[in-house]
C-alpha cells in the first residue's frame, strides 16, 4: 500500500474514532440517552463508562492524527475532526437517533 493511501486510511480511522467518541459523550447526557433508549434509565456507572470510552476514542483519534503528521499539524486536524464529529452526532440524534443504539449497552 502506498504511503499516501495508508495515511488516508489512518485519517479516516481518526475521523471514525472521533465520531464514536462524540457519540459516547452524547449518550452520557440524559436527554440524548432518552432519545436512544427511552425505556431504560441511565445508570451512574453507565454515565462514567460512556464518558470513559468517549474520552478514550477521542484520544485514539488524536494518536492516529499524530501518526500521520507532525504534532502541530496533527493538533489542528484533530480539533477540526472533533467539530465535524460532534456535528455529525448532533444531526444523527436529530433525525436518526436509533442509529446510535448499538452504544446503548454501555450505559444500561
Amino acid at each position, binding site marked *: 500500500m502506498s504511503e499516501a493511501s495508508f495515511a488516508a486510511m489512518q485519517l479516516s480511522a481518526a475521523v471514525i474514532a472521533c465520531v464514536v467518541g462524540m457519540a459516547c459523550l452524547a449518550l452520557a*447526557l440524559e436527554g440524548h440517552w432518552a432519545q436512544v433508549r427511552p425505556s431504560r434509565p441511565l445508570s451512574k456507572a453507565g454515565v462514567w463508562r460512556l464518558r470513559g470510552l468517549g474520552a478514550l476514542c477521542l484520544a485514539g483519534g488524536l494518536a492516529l492524527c499524530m501518526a500521520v503528521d*507532525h504534532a502541530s499539524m496533527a493538533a489542528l486536524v484533530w*480539533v477540526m*475532526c*472533533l467539530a*465535524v464529529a460532534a456535528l455529525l452526532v*448532533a444531526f444523527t*440524534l436529530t433525525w436518526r437517533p436509533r442509529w446510535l443504539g448499538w452504544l446503548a449497552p454501555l450505559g444500561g
Partner: protein
Amino acid sequence: MFQNFRLAMAWLHTWFGLVLGFVLMVVFFFGALSVFDREIDRWAIPATRFEPQPMPSFDKVLRPVFEGMQPTPQSLKALRDKVDGPLPERFDTARRWAAYTTHRDPVLSVFTAYEVPNARNPDDVARGNLTVDPRTGESLPDDRLKVGSRFFYPLHYSLHLRWLNLGYWVVGLAALVMLAALVSGVVMHRKVLREFFTFRPKKSTQRSALDLHNMTGVLALPFHFFFALTGLVIFAGIYFPVAHTQLNPLHELHEKLEAQETGLPHERAGVAAPLASVDAMMAEAQRRWANRGMAGEVGFLALQHVGDANGYVSVYRAGTDRIALVGEGVHFKASTGELLREDPPRSAVASVNEFLTGLHLQHFRHWLLRGLYLFGGLMGCVCIATGFVFFVEKRKKQHARQGSQGSRVVDALAVTTVTGMLVAALGMLIGNRLLPDTMPAGWPARGDMEQYLFWGCWVLAMAHAFVRSAPVTRGLINPAWREQCWAVAAMAVLAVGLNWVTTGDHLIKTLSEGYWPVAGVDLFLLGSSVLALVAARHLKLRTETVSRTKQVGVAHV
C-alpha cells in the same frame, strides 16, 4: 449599566453581533472560499487548467520576464501624489524581484519593486506584477481576473475598501467583536454542555434557529476563536504600527544591528554588478536543505538591490509539509553566487508567530485539513445567519404589534447578506463564463466587468430583499428568502452548465481525469444548489404553516 455580568454580555453579544455580523458573514464566507482560492482561479481562467508546476529555471525562464517588466498603471497612479516632479518613463532600478509558488499553483506570480527617483519618502516604490506560465515564460493577459485569489480572498480581509485601509480596519473591528461575541456567547449560554448536541428543527423557527446558532458556534469554537485571533495577528502591523511610529528609533537601531549581523546589505552600493547563475544558487539551497534532513521545493525566490554590487539572492523553502509558509532561507551574493548566510532555526517566539499566521494562511498540503477548514468556515456562516434569523424571529411579533419597522429592516439586510451574497458570487461566475475573451473597445477590462457584475448583482439582491420585505411588519416570513434560494439554486446549476458549454470540461471529464480543481468547484456549486432547494422547500412549508396559524387566529377572533 447592567445588573450583572451575564446581562452585560448578553447585550454586547446581541447588538455588536448584529451590527458586525453583516461584515463577519462576508469575511467568513469568502474566507471559507479562499481555502480553495487557487482552485477557483482555475475554474475562472481556463487557460491555467493544468497541473501545478515547481519553480522554473531563473536563468532561462524568469530572468527575461523580470527584465521586461515595468510598474503597473495602478501603481503609477498611486505614486503621482507622492513625488516631487515627473515620474520617469522607464523604471530601471529594481529594488526587488520576487517569485512565489505553492504546491497548488500551475501559474507563477512574479513581483517587482522599483526605486522612484523623485519620491518624497525614500521607502516608496513602484510595483509591478505578472502571472507567467512557468513552463514557457509566457505571461497571462493582464485583464484575466483571478476570481479566487485576487477577488474573493482580498474581499475577505479588506472588503476591497482600500481608501485609508478602511476595509482592513472594519474587518479588524469585526474580528475583535467576533472574539467578544464568542466569549459573551458562552457566558450567556447557560446550558452549554447539556445542549452541546441539541438541534430541534421541528420546534418554532426561533428555537431551532437558536439551537443551530449555538451548535455551529460552540462545536467549532476553537476554530472560530483562533481564526479571528490569528487574522488580527497577521495584520498587527496595520492595527498597531508601533514599530514604525512611536518606537521607530528603536526599530532603526535594530535594522542597523541586524544588517551587520546577517551580512545582508540594507542599502545599495551604487556600483553596478552582474548577476551570477541563480539556478546554481537554488540548487545549492536545495542541497543544503536535503543535508539538514528537510529536502524540499523552492517556494519563494527574491533578489534584492538588483544589478548592484550589494545585491543578494534569497531562496526560501516551500512550507508544503509544515504550517509555516516558507522558511529555511539561504542567501547568496548576487554577483558571485557565494553563500552569505543560512537562516538559523527560528526562535521560540518566531515559531509561535509562524504557527499562528501559517495556520490561518494555510499554504500547506493537507487536503483533509483544508476541507475541514472550508467546513468550519461554513459553520461560522451558519452561526451568523441563524443569529440574524433568531434576532428577527424574537422581535417580529412585538414589532408587528407596535408598528415598528425594525425587524423588517434587519430581516431585509439579513437576506442581502446571506442569500444576496451568494447571488452576487454566482452572478460573477456566470459573467466569467459569458463575457467575451476581450471586451470591445470602450468597455472596461474583462476583469473589471466581472467585478461590476458581482457588486451589481448584490445591489439587485438587496433591492429585491427590501421590496419584498413588507410581510415582516405583519410578523410573517419575508418571501425574498425563498425567492433568492431559488435564484441561488438556478444560478449555481447555470454556472456549472456554462463551464461545460464554454470550456468542454464537464464533470464526467474532470472527474475521470482527476482534475480536482475544476471538478471540486463544479461539485460544490451543485451541492450548493441542492442545499438551496432544500432551504426553499423548508421555507415554503414554514410559510404555509405560519399563514395557516394566522388564518386560524383570525377565525377565532
